[in-house]
Structures are given as structure tokens and as C-alpha cells.
């Protein structure tokens, strides 16, 4: 990737589109501190990630970032509820009744109340994806990064998931950066960025968002 200079506004709902191999996933991974750029700076919440230690980056990921991946990435050994609680437990704060209540609320929001005690491995793709969304919200992150969150869902589920993300965006004021190749979905975002051959090809913001 070259010459990328992007800034995302707090509370905005952004989509990144582009053909496969265009570099959009790489961009998202770099934004999310999962990957390090060969050169350049990433500034999250006013802090440059370039000079952070592994521990500091881990804390940043845990507290400020939420990830939703294309392939769900739940821990198959744990139940839906335990998966949702995991980011909180990683933060090493004591798990209180309120915490569990909040995790249950998140599962209610994504409509998984009935299956919250099922092991992740025993859930359908759409259910797993919704668990992943609830999990990304657990620590009230400022930013949620989603890489084709509906990549392997049918169109009905896709619609549901986007409605959900949008709802969360409005309700919690969370910043969303979402990769998609679905133009129909992308058009619902406040801002669309198209990546082509590692460069920004298009950057449109909707004024009426």
C-alpha cells in the first residue's frame, strides 16, 4: 500500500470497498494494530502506535478496538456467553454480576438469548457472526473494525447484521470501519472508501448522514 492518508471521525460509519487483492484487508489490519506498516504512522485516539510496546498494543486492542472477522473467529471451546465475556476477562478486571448482565444484554441485542450457553462450535454461521459482534462490543470500544463481516452469510442474515451494526453505531456512538465488497451495503455507510492497487481510488462522504 502506498500514499494512504486517512482520518476517521469519531462515531462515523465507514465502509472500505475494493477488489480482492486490492489491499483493503491489509489496510484494516494495519488500522487495527494487528499488522505494522513498513513506514508511516497510525494514530488511534491521539496516540501513535508506532512506538508502542507489545503490551501497550495489546492493551489498546483490548480497550479501544473491537474486531469482527469474516470467519467469525470465536473460541470454539467456549460458550457464546463466555466468548462475549472474553475481552473483559482479558482486561483482567474482576467479572461482576453487572458484567455478566451486560454480556447478556449484548446477546439480547444480537438476538441470541436462547443459545447463549451453547458452545460456539455448535452454532450456525449467522449465530457465530452475531456472537462475534456482541463480543466486539463487550469492552465498549471506540472503534470497531470489521472485515467482510457478512462475507459468508446469506442475504437475509447480511441485511440483519448490517441493521444491527448501524443500530449499535447510533446507540453507542461507536466508530465503524467495515470492509465489504457488497456495493449495496457500502452505499448505506456515511463514507465509502475504494481501494485499488494499494491506493485510494475513491473517497465519498455523505453529507446527510
Amino acid at each position: 500500500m502506498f500514499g494512504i492518508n486517512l482520518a476517521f471521525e469519531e462515531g462515523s460509519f465507514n465502509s472500505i470497498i475494493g477488489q480482492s487483492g486490492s489491499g483493503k484487508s491489509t489496510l484494516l489490519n494495519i488500522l487495527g494494530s494487528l499488522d505494522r506498516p513498513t513506514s508511516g504512522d497510525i494514530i488511534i485516539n491521539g496516540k501513535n502506535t508506532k512506538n508502542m510496546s507489545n503490551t501497550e498494543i495489546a492493551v489498546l486492542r483490548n480497550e479501544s478496538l473491537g474486531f469482527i472477522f469474516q470467519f467469525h473467529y470465536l473460541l470454539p471451546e467456549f460458550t457464546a456467553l463466555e466468548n462475549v465475556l472474553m475481552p473483559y476477562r482479558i482486561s483482567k478486571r474482576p467479572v461482576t454480576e453487572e458484567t455478566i448482565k451486560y454480556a447478556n444484554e449484548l446477546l439480547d441485542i444480537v438476538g441470541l438469548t436462547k443459545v447463549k450457553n451453547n458452545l460456539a462450535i455448535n452454532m450456525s454461521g449467522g449465530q457465530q457472526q452475531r456472537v462475534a459482534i456482541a463480543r466486539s462490543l463487550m469492552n465498549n470500544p471506540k472503534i470497531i473494525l470489521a472485515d467482510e463481516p457478512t462475507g459468508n452469510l446469506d442475504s437475509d442474515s447480511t441485511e440483519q447484521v448490517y441493521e444491527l451494526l448501524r443500530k449499535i453505531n447510533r446507540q453507542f456512538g461507536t466508530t465503524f470501519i467495515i470492509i465489504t465488497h457488497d456495493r449495496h451495503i457500502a452505499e448505506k455507510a456515511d463514507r465509502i472508501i475504494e481501494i485499488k492497487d494499494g491506493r485510494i481510488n475513491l473517497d465519498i462522504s455523505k453529507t446527510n448522514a
Partner: protein
Amino acid sequence: MKLAFSIAVRFLKSGKFQTWFIILGIAIGVSVQVFIGSLISGLQKSLVDKTIGNSSQITIQAPTGEYLSDYSDIITSLSTNVDGIKIYSPTITARGTLLEGTDTSPVVMRGFDFESANQIYSFNEKITEGRIPTAINEIALGIGFKDSLNIDLNDQITFDIPTIGATEVTIVGFFDFKVSAINTAWAITGLNTVQTSLGVGNVVDSIESQIEDDLIFDAEVISASVENQFVNDGEGIPTVSNWIQSNEELLSGLQGQSISSIMIQVFVMISVVLAIASILAIIVMQKSKQIGILKAMGIQNGDASLIFLFEGLILGVLGAVFGVLLGLGLSYAFTTFALNSDGTPVVPLFIDPAFIALSAVIAIVASLGASLIPARKSSKLSVIEVIRNA
């Protein structure tokens, strides 16, 4: 810590078959360790016991032709100043010939203080006929004499010491030491029988002793401190000898056995460590996706390593517990089913709790050590590689 532990437990539970397989592997290693260790130390103890259990382990011998007249003072002084000796017994020996009609046989007439000598030689158990001599000029003979002299209980025979004279003695018993050199050579009697035969006063020519059981291999040190005592007391210089000097072959045999037992144990442990390390390495590969997810959620590298250290610890502890149980079970089976015709075990096992605890600790430490490499791997695992290779 708690999180890493609960993740470790969950990972282990999710692959139950694999987990029990590793635990079984460790358990078998530990049980072999416990069993071989108990077997070898039992073997050694019974061998040592059979060889030197009924003999003097440290002997204080007066110079040739001289006697120790103040032997009870010497024993009193040694008892207070030297640690590690459980019993002292004065003896006096005369060499001569037993005459019965036309039959003659050379004999070593050993005079004992039976009260103390019994604790060394267990004469009570060795007497096969009759009894231990109690009065002067009563003797008990090795069963080997029975045929060579054609004698029986309560026979009177002549004990002749060249250049000194002959004494009439009564045979009151026969003993069997299970050693033909003793059975055909020794006659045992009270101190006074030998003293009067030799025409000497209340003197002895040597003091025999036995070391406390757990100090048996410290014979040389104890023997040296006995020797020092004589220098200190300004006595004449009797020679002090110990069982280690006179049983070098036995000792080198025991050492060889110990070394081979240690070798077996070391190799068993090495194979256990390799097995755990390789299986844990496979688990890291299997769980790399999960580690990647946890890292994306912000788990710190230290905690990611801890997961695998805990796995190693849990496997080690469970493996050690089952291994000790299995090893004790094996030992129990061995001592119950492998019996001599008289019902005693072929090899008496020696169960040493300290040794078993050590085996368990070694297994746990080895498991922890084996999990270090996977733990490091887990710590170094990069999220992005896991996500790219999804």
C-alpha cells in the same frame, strides 16, 4: 493467571482423548520410574542385609597376640563419643581342634557376650537344634560339624588349643548360618569358656559392632571416627576395619546397579519429556487460531504463554498422580504375586515416600520444562499470520 488457567483447562477438556493420552504417557513413565526405583533399592537393601546384616560392620581388633582388658570402658567411651553405631559386642576367639574319638576337626572357637552379640548375629534364629550356650564350657556348633565329627546334642568333646591345653566342652546346640565357611568352622560359646581355655583373665581380642541402618554406607566415616577415639584416649592402637573395606566387590556391584537404575530412569524421563514437548507443540499448532483470536482481543504475550505452561503443569500433575498410583499398584502386584515357595516376595520392594515424591516432582518439572517451547511459540505467534492463513 486465572484466565490463562481457565483457558488451559478448557483447551485440555476440548481434546479429551488427546489429553488422557498424554496423561497416560506421563503416568506410565512415572510408574516405571517408581517401580524400577523401588525394585532396585529393595534389591540393594536385601542384598546388603543378606551380606552384612548378620556380621560385624565395624570391628576393633587388638594387635596380634594382645588383648583388650578394659573393653567395657572402651565400649562406654565409644558409645558416648561416636554417633551412628547401634550396638557393640566384645568377642574373644581361640583357634584349635575339636577331638571326638578318632575324628578331629579344626575349629574357630568364638566367645560372645550373647546379649549384645545376638543383636548382630541373631543366633536365636540360626539355632536349628538345642539352644544357645549359657554356662561355661557349653558350646554350639555349626551344622557342618555334625557329619565330620559324627556327633550329636549333649555329647562331650575335647577342644584342644595347641601349646596351651585341652578343655572338655558340652555340645548344647547346632546352628545354621547358611554359609558353609561358617557352618564348618565356627563354634560359639560364652566369653568365659574361651577366656579360661586360653588361660587369660577377663579380656577380649576384638569388639564388633553394627551401624545404624540408614548410615550403613557411611561405614568408612564412622570407622574413622572410631579410630580417632583411640588416638584421643591414648590407648594402644587396635586396628579398626569396616565392611566396606572387606566387601569391595559387593559395593561396586551395588554401585553398578544404582548407576544402571539411574540410567533407566533418566532415559524414561527423557522420553516422557520429549513426548510431552512434541504433543504440546502440536497443541499450539492446533490452537494457533485461538491464540490469534485472543491476541486480536488484546491478550498479552505473557498470558498467552501461561496458557501452555498451565497445560504442561496440569498434564504433569495428573500424570504424576496417576503414575505414582500405577507404580505403587505395580509394586503391590509384584510383591503379592511374585513369591518364593515359602511365601516371601522374590524381591522385597523398598517403598521410599521421599523417592516417590521426587519422581512425581521430576515429572511435573519435566512437563513444565517441556511446555516452555510451546509457551514461547505461543507468545511469538503473530495475529496477522493466523488471520492470513485462516
